[in-house]
């Protein structure tokens, strides 16, 4: 049986009053959204083969809150996710974090894992700021919610050759031959693909590559790989590696009595604290051509101080810098968007223009693909268990030392 609902004058007045209250308090909703912390899902390889590096990135997360406060940026509520160094787990964890309320994702150090997270973020329409991942295709898919403040493999390579040429000219001594060893994961393979083509563009590169050796980054023994490299009699060793393999390779260099004139690394591993701590004086000498930080920038000094306070004796590195900058991008965008609405956040990230930052170059801006194409890499060298920046000259704090001191003379 249908019943007629009659709206009385009293009901109408009450309804209008309620509507007025809602309309009147609407601006406060926006303020309240701004006041609430932005929920950021931070996905990192906290366990598995890349756990050490994931934990290192986490140090960058841990020191961010205080710096954001100093910069008068909104608070972030960090939601941690462990990718277990596994692409499928990364995908599942990203979905779970979004389901649990994450309004923005950050991570995930590795290109394979970041690719999986980017797919989920795009599908769900949640902004994703990549901290570290260099494989170019991630920002070539036409994604609207994926942003990367980290150079792609071709940029890393191009900057590496520019910096090497600068260093060898400055020292007046250059290797004539090299052997190229690279890890066979997504990052290593992307770097290998770009290496030859990029090198051809730099006619001033002093060395020619005698052999390219791909290896398994999770291998327990790299003696065969090093023996094969040594057999080429190359003067320099060009590396794209991770941390554990960098340590294993250095040990093998010493044991197999091979001291190349230079170790030129275009990836992680050789500059990391665990490498320096494990190898002591044998860790000195390698040059790394990596996304780094400008030691002369104001925010770099603040970040260094925050890290030194939280982890005394730890060298600041790529992991801390780019994880911090990803969170900086998130907080800056949240402030400008004035809301946690995913589309508003993505639009704000696209319009990012941060001049006061840490990484070398003019600052943080994103192109139409969501890539910060203005980033510059640096060359750093291990010296007495510390790291110094040796190129480019405008963002350096030391002069290069080349050739490397032989292992048996230390």
């Amino acid at each position, binding site marked *: 049986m249908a019943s007629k609902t009659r709206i009385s004058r009293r009901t109408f007045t009450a309804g209008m009053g309620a509507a007025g209250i809602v309309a009147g308090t609407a601006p406060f909703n926006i303020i309240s959204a701004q006041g609430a912390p932005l929920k950021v899902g931070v996905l990192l390889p906290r366990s598995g083969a890349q756990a050490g590096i994931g934990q290192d990135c986490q140090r960058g997360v841990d020191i961010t809150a205080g710096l954001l406060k100093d910069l008068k940026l909104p608070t972030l509520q960090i939601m941690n996710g462990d990718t277990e160094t596994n692409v499928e787990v990364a995908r599942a964890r990203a979905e779970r974090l979004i389901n649990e309320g994450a309004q923005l994702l950050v991570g995930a150090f590795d290109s394979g894992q970041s690719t999986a997270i980017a797919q989920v973020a795009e599908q769900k329409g949640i902004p994703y700021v990549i901290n570290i991942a260099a494989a170019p295709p991630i920002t070539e898919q036409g994604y609207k919610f994926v942003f990367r403040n980290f150079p792609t493999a071709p940029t890393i390579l191009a900057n590496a050759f520019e910096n090497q040429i600068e260093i060898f000219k400055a020292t007046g001594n250059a290797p004539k031959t090299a052997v190229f060893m690279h890890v066979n994961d997504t990052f290593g393979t992307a770097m290998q693909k770009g290496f030859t083509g990029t090198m051809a563009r730099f006619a001033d590169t002093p060395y020619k590559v005698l052999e390219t050796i791909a290896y398994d980054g999770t291998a327990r023994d790299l003696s065969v790989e090093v023996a094969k490299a040594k057999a080429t009699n190359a003067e320099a060793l060009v590396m794209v590696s991770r941390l554990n393999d960098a*340590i294993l390779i250095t040990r093998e260099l010493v044991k197999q009595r091979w001291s190349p004139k230079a170790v030129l690394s275009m990836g992680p591993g050789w500059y990391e604290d665990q490498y320096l701590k494990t190898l002591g004086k044998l860790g000195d000498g390698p040059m790394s051509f990596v996304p780094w930080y400008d030691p002369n920038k104001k925010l770099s000094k603040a970040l260094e101080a925050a890290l030194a306070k939280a982890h005394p004796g730890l060298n600041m590195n790529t992991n801390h810098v780019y994880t911090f900058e990803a969170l900086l991008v998130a907080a800056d965008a949240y402030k400008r968007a004035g809301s946690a609405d995913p589309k508003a956040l993505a639009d704000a990230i696209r319009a990012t223009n941060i001049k006061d930052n840490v990484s070398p170059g003019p600052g943080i801006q994103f192109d139409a693909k969501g890539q910060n194409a203005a980033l510059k890499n640096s060359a750093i060298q291990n010296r007495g268990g510390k790291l110094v920046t040796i190129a480019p000259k405008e963002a350096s704090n030391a002069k290069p030392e080349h050739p490397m001191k032989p292992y048996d003379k230390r």
Partner: protein
Amino acid sequence: MTTEVVLKIAISGVLTGLVYGLMALGLSVIFGVVRVVNFAHGEMMTIAMYLVIVFFSALGLDPLLMLVPISAVLFALGYLMQRAIINPFINRPEHSQFMLLVAVALIMVNALLLIFGPDSQGITTSYSFDSFDVGGIIIDAGKVYAAIAALIVAVALFSFFRLTLTGKAIRACADNYNGALVVGLDVKRLYSLTFGIGAACVGAAGTMLMIVTDVTPAIGPAYTLLAFVIVITGGLGSMPGAIVGGILIGLTEALGGFFFTPSAKTMFSFGILVLVLLFRPQGIMGRKTA
């Protein structure tokens, strides 16, 4: 590419293979007697490796000196595991045993992760960076010491099973379970002893491996898989087969990696495994079952 380099690679492969062989020997002994496939084998070895780290950090003890004490600790662990956890599962279906040992392996990995963290850890001894130059062939000193120690432990184990009454009793259990019961052997105790001996082998292998490599909690499953490849290649349950399998896998990985591509060296050991399964399913030194 000179002959010296190839010889160096081959020697390195054989030396590494001997240590792998000792690790696989433990698995083979346990399976040969108790008929339980130890899916926690690699994880037990990582426990031994972390014990080396602990004793080295605390007391500065050389791994070669820790060989016997750590093997003893692993013996106790294996003995107790068999008594408390595995014995009740001896007569249960195989899949129950598999799941039990996979669960034990997962617990071990996560316990190590909680205690030691995820970072790779290693030790640096006085000879960690030493090598011998034998007629232009550079040989890793650490691998030589580790391989010699592995060989001594293997010979001691063979002697134990051949020459002692307990060893003969264990072999009797392996040959004829019912017969062993009929003649009054304490089979449960002998099973526990065997599991303990297998674990002690793993302890010795883990101690020696710390001379040449680092350890992370996550490395255990890879060693378990490697031990399976070696014992199946050498012959499941055959003690000499485990050593022969270890040398063969070590040599194949080294030479395959050198002549082809190092990134695919594991592929060569699996290739050997497939060939053995196709043409000699009982393994190189295994016995054909009726």
